C-alpha cells in the first residue's frame, strides 16, 4: 500500500514530534524553528501564503496600483466588460471594478484582522479561566453552550437586528458568534495540561496563578490557537461578506467585497463581472487562509 509507505517516509524525514500540549517545558526556540522549517517545506501552505501575500500587497498598495479612483463614475463606460481599458470591467455607474476590489480588499482584510484579534483575545482569556478555575468553569461553559445552541449566522443576524446594520456592528456580531469556538478549544487544552507535574511544581513554589497562566500554560497551548486563528481569519471574512450580501453589513457604495456581490446580483444577466469577480476575490483569500491553516496544523502537530 503506497499510503503506508509514504507515511513512513514522512515519519523518517521529520524530527521526533514535540507536541505542544504535552511538552514538559515551555517550547524552546528550536521547537518554533522546527515548526517554521516544516511549514516552509509544505508546498500547499506556501501556496496559501503566496495568495495572501499578493492580496495584501495589492490592497496595501491600492493607491499606487489602482488605475482609477474608487468613486470615479463614468456613465459612458457603464457596465463595460473586462478588457484593456478596464481590466475587470465596470459597474452600473461606470466605476472601475479592479480599483474597487483593491480598496475593498483593505476593508475585508481589516475586518478579518480585527474580528480575529478581538475574538481570540476574549475567547482565549475566557477559555483559560474556564480551564484553570474549576469554580468559574460551569458558568462560562453554560453561556458558551447557549451561544452554540444557535447556528452562528442566525446568532449574528439576531445580534445585528439589535445593533442595526453596518460594518462595525457586523464585526461585533461575528466576534460574539465565534468566541465559543475559542473558549472550547482553549479550555480543553488547558484541562489537558493543568494536572501535569510541572504545573504542580510551579504551583508548589508558590508562584502566582497569573504568572503560571501567562508563562507556563499559555505558551504550551499556542498551537491549536494559532491554527484556529488562521482558519477563523478566512471564516470571519466570509461571514462579514455574507452579512454584507444580506444587506446587514457594509452598505453600498462602500466597496466591501460582499456588498459588491450584492450590488452585482441585480445585473447578473447583463454584467456578470460585477458580482463574479468580487466573489472570486473572497474565495481566493479564504482559500489562502485555509491552505495556510492546513499547513500550520501539519507543521505544529506532525504525526
Amino acid at each position, binding site marked *: *500500500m*503506497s*499510503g*503506508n509507505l*509514504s*507515511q513512513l517516509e514522512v515519519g523518517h524525514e521529520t524530527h521526533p514530534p514535540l507536541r505542544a500540549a504535552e511538552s514538559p517545558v515551555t517550547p524552546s526556540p528550536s521547537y518554533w524553528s522546527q515548526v517554521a522549517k516544516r511549514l516552509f517545506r509544505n508546498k*500547499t501552505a506556501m501556496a496559501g501564503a503566496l495568495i495572501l501575500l499578493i492580496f495584501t500587497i495589492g490592497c496595501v498598495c491600492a493607491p499606487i496600483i489602482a488605475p482609477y479612483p474608487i468613486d470615479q463614475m463614468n456613465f459612458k463606460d457603464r457596465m463595460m466588460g473586462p478588457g484593456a481599458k478596464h481590466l475587470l470591467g465596470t459597474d452600473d455607474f461606470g466605476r472601475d471594478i479592479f480599483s474597487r476590489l483593491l480598496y475593498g480588499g483593505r476593508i475585508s482584510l481589516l475586518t478579518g484582522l480585527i474580528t480575529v484579534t478581538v475574538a481570540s483575545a476574549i475567547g482565549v482569556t475566557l477559555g483559560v479561566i474556564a480551564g484553570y478555575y474549576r469554580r468559574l468553569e460551569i458558568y462560562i461553559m*453554560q*453561556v458558551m*453552550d*447557549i*451561544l452554540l*445552541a*444557535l*447556528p452562528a*449566522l*442566525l446568532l449574528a*443576524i*439576531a*445580534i445585528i*437586528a*439589535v445593533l*442595526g446594520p453596518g460594518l462595525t456592528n457586523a464585526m461585533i456580531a461575528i466576534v460574539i458568534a465565534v468566541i465559543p469556538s475559542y473558549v472550547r478549544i482553549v479550555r480543553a487544552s488547558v484541562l489537558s495540561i493543568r494536572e501535569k507535574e510541572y504545573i504542580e511544581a510551579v504551583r508548589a513554589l508558590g508562584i502566582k496563578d497569573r504568572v503560571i497562566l501567562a508563562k507556563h500554560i499559555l505558551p504550551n497551548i499556542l498551537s491549536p490557537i494559532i491554527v484556529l486563528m488562521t482558519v477563523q481569519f*478566512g471564516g470571519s471574512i*466570509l461571514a462579514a*461578506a*455574507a452579512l454584507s*450580501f*444580506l444587506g446587514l453589513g457594509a452598505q453600498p457604495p462602500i466597496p466591501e467585497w*460582499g456588498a459588491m*456581490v450584492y450590488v*452585482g*446580483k441585480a445585473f*447578473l*444577466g447583463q454584467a*456578470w463581472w460585477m*458580482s*463574479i469577480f468580487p*466573489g*472570486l476575490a*473572497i*474565495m*481566493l483569500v*479564504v*482559500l489562502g487562509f*485555509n*491552505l495556510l491553516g*492546513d499547513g500550520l496544523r501539519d507543521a505544529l502537530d506532525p504525526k
Partner: protein
Amino acid sequence: MQRYLIRRLLSLLGTLLGVTILIFLLVHLIPGDPVQYLLGEHPTDEAIAALNAQLGLDRPWYVQYASFVGKLLQGDLGTSYITGYTVWQEIVERFPITFQLALYSVILATVIGIVVGVISAVKQNTWVDRLVVFFSLIGISAPGFWIALFLIWIFAYKLPIFPISGYDGFFSLILPSITLAMGEAGLIARMTRSSMLDVIKQDYMRTAQAKGAPHLWMILRHGLQNAVIPVITLIGLEFGALLAGAIVTETVFSLQGLGSLAIESIGKRDLPTIQGLVFFVAFLFAITNLIVDLLYSWFDPRIKYE
C-alpha cells in the same frame, strides 16, 4: 444508556432555558417600537395604549418573559403581529421547503463527499488525491451566495434550463441544493479522507490484505465501515445546521423557507415570530445533535454511554 439519556435531556433543558433568556433579551433590545411600526405614522396615544395592552407589551418585562416561557411549555410559539397567524402556522408553512433543501443537499453532499474522500485516501499522495484535496478546499472557501450566483449565471441566464428564483416544485430546488451541497461535500470529503487514512494504517487492514481479500471489498467492508463514524457525526450536525435555515441560499433564490422567514421578520420587527422561530431553530438544532450522539453507539457498539 438510560442514565446518559436522562442526563443529556436535562442539560438540553437547561440550555434551552438559557436560549429563551437570550432570545427574550435580544428581541427586547431590538430598537424601534413594534407598536409604532404597526400603527404607521402619527398614531393617537389611545391607539398606542390600546395596542400595547392588546399585545401585552404594557406588562413588566418579567411577566412578559414568564408568559413567553409558559406558552412555550404548552407548545405555543406565539402569534405574529403582522400576519395574525400563529408562529407555528408560519413555521409549518415554510418548513417543507427548508426540509427538502436540507435533505437534497445533504444526500448529494454525502454521496459526492464519501466517494471522493475514499478515492482520495486510497490514492494518497497521487495527483487524484491532490485534486480532491484542492477542490474540497475550494468548496469550503467559496461563499455560498457566490456559488449560487455563479450557478444562476450559467444555468439560468447562459443556458436557460433552471428558474432564476422562486419555488415551483422539485425542479426549482436543484440549483439551491447544489449550492449548499458544494461546501458540505468539501467538508465531508476532507473528513472521510482523514478518517480513511487512519483506518488504512490499522493492523486488521493488513490482515485482510494478507489473507487475499479483494481490494474493493477490503476498502468498503473493513475500511469504510470503520472510517464512517466521524463522517456520520459531521453529516448529522450539518443536516441540523441546514434545517435551521439556509439563510443566504434561500435569500438568493427567493425561496420561502425558515431562513428567509428569519430575515423578513427581523425586517418587519415581528417580535413574536423572531422569538418563536429562533427558539424552534435552537430546539431543532439541539435535538438533531442529540440524535447524532445516540446514533454513534448504534454505528459503533464499542461506544457505550454511561
